[in-house]
């Protein structure tokens, strides 16, 4: 299932770290408004946080179609399930920490098990709220949702992928969770990119070692690969936007064709993308995997600071890759 062409946009540009950065929430709200214009079924559902989900413009354009339930996440997800019962396509926007922790049983029962056409958008996930502490850091969301049946989990890496994932979700019946990052990221994909759930993209070829990543960490993986290349190491970078279902073929190709895998994500080291990759390789082709992520509640600090500190600076990722050679 893996596409093997690197996105053209990457080839022509300089170092990824030097590219301009974008807040994916803008792509999120623009796409949502666009979808809403062409499909009257689409509605937004929020828990007070209109502003932090950047939904003010959407609210202005569709005042009736942004449903604010107040600070009540359980009700928010139940209401979304009921809206879906009534034929609507709700995009639930809430800080990922509260959406997933507070409404987990509603996600399991009312959305996944009930197979409702609800799109859960986890805003400002991972350590985006770094200074606000562990209660607001949403590093567990991926592991939590991965344990639940019937839930596609998407972690887009840039604005283009965020928009593409949303368009796919709007067009596809069934439960989905999309992480919408707050931390600015460089553009990785160009407009030719098509999102296919469960499909990885090799964003950089390489055959010594593979880095599998997604979300806000993908550009860091690319920067690590640039460094590694300078040091004579050929690192493959696999973009894995869909954590569930995982692109098993892409993982096994990496396991077979390179000497080891580094996974790098803005998530816990227990049960996230790294866990999914580990479960896959031990089943079919045991390989060394270095799982980068957060292994504990994180201290105070900016998202970038915390990612670097956890070994996910470009240097840190490159070092992890080298340790596998």
């Amino acid at each position: 299932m893996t596409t093997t062409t690197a996105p053209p946009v990457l080839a022509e540009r300089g170092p990824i770290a030097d590219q301009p950065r974008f807040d994916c929430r803008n792509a999120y709200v623009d796409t949502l408004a666009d979808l809403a214009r062409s499909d009257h079924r689409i509605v937004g559902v929020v828990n007070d946080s209109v502003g932090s989900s950047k939904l003010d413009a959407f609210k202005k354009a569709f005042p009736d179609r942004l449903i604010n339930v107040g600070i009540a996440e359980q009700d928010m997800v139940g209401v979304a399930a009921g809206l879906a019962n009534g034929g609507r396509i709700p995009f639930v926007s809430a800080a990922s920490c509260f959406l997933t922790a507070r409404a987990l049983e509603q996600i399991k029962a009312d959305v996944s098990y009930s197979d409702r056409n609800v799109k859960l958008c986890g805003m400002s996930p991972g350590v985006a709220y770094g200074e606000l502490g562990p209660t607001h850091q949403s590093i567990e969301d991926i592991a939590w949702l991965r344990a639940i049946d019937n839930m596609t989990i998407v972690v887009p890496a840039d604005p283009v992928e965020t928009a593409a994932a949303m368009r796919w979700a709007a067009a596809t019946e069934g439960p989905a969770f999309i992480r919408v990052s707050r931390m600015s990221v460089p553009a990785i994909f160009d407009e030719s990119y098509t999102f296919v759930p469960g499909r990885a993209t090799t964003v950089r070829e390489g055959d010594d070692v593979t880095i599998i990543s997604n979300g806000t960490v993908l550009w860091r993986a690319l920067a690590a690969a640039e460094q590694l290349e300078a040091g004579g190491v050929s690192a493959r970078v696999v973009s894995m936007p869909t954590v569930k279902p995982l692109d098993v073929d892409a993982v096994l190709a990496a396991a077979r064709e390179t000497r080891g895998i580094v996974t790098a994500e803005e998530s816990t080291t227990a049960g996230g993308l790294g866990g999914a990759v580990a479960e896959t390789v031990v089943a079919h082709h045991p390989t060394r995997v270095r799982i980068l992520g957060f292994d504990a509640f994180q201290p105070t600090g900016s998202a970038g600071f915390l990612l670097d500190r956890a070994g996910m600076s470009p240097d840190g990722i490159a070092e992890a890759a080298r340790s596998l050679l």
Partner: protein
Amino acid sequence: MTALAPEHVTMPVLGRLSPHASRAEQVAHIAEAARQIRLQDLKLVHHAGAGHIGGDFSAIDVLATLYGAVLNVDPDHPDDPERDRFILSKGHVAGALYTTLAAFGFLPVEELATFLKPLSKLNGHPNRNYVRGVEANTGPLGHGLPIAVGHALSAKLDVSRRRTYVLTGDGELQEGSNWEAMMAASHHELDSLTVIVDRNRLQQGATTRETNDLDPLDAKAAAFGFAVVEVNGHDHGELLDVLSAVPFRPGKPTFVIAHTHKGHPISYMSNNVAWHHKVPDEAQLEQALAELDRLQAEQKHEEVARATGDERQR
């Protein structure tokens, strides 16, 4: 106890009366439906060896009234977007719901014989993907009301006249999710929404009063912006009148406190917390079936007496 088998499933399909039937005819039809549902449900629980008979019997009169004469639903078009929605929030009484759905043509009656069997579509809590007419997969308490609010919001957005009914337990109202939903319902002025509380004053382990008192429940609901109505939850006439007359206050969702007894009307079950999920043995089954028959005879008698009395008074 023998395992649940096809021969234990004997309920007739009752269907709906013509909308031109008189109120008295409707009430009689609902009463007969409720009786048949109770008879069948008893056998299901006895032979399957599991179920929530107490809560089933406290809710069956409400279910029979809704499906028998109130809800705008049609087993031939179970997905009609303009249908009314009924959400059973107290999902543990799935047995009562399945039996009701079968009585009104949503579920083949024979399928009731698979209740709780391995790989059955009829597990202990309803699954909408398996059973026509089920609107939400409930079971964890406190989920139905938010879903109902979501549906009522969709109806409002659609400028549709379809209504939303949700039945909750009373113990269930200890879940805060309900109060979140009630606040949102009144804020959005969802007067097409009716919350029915099965106010049997018992929960799983004890009375609501002993556990975590809900009284004054009417004042709570009123303070959360609902129009509150109280009914005898076993009186089909009262239920029919109230449930078809909603909303009572334009712009306000309705909160119907249906006073019920868990296990009603079986003498040894009624208002007895032990029967939350106890299973009647052979003798208890026979007694319960006999009591239901005796009650029917008494009611007929009473009706005749009342009719005669009515005539005399004229």
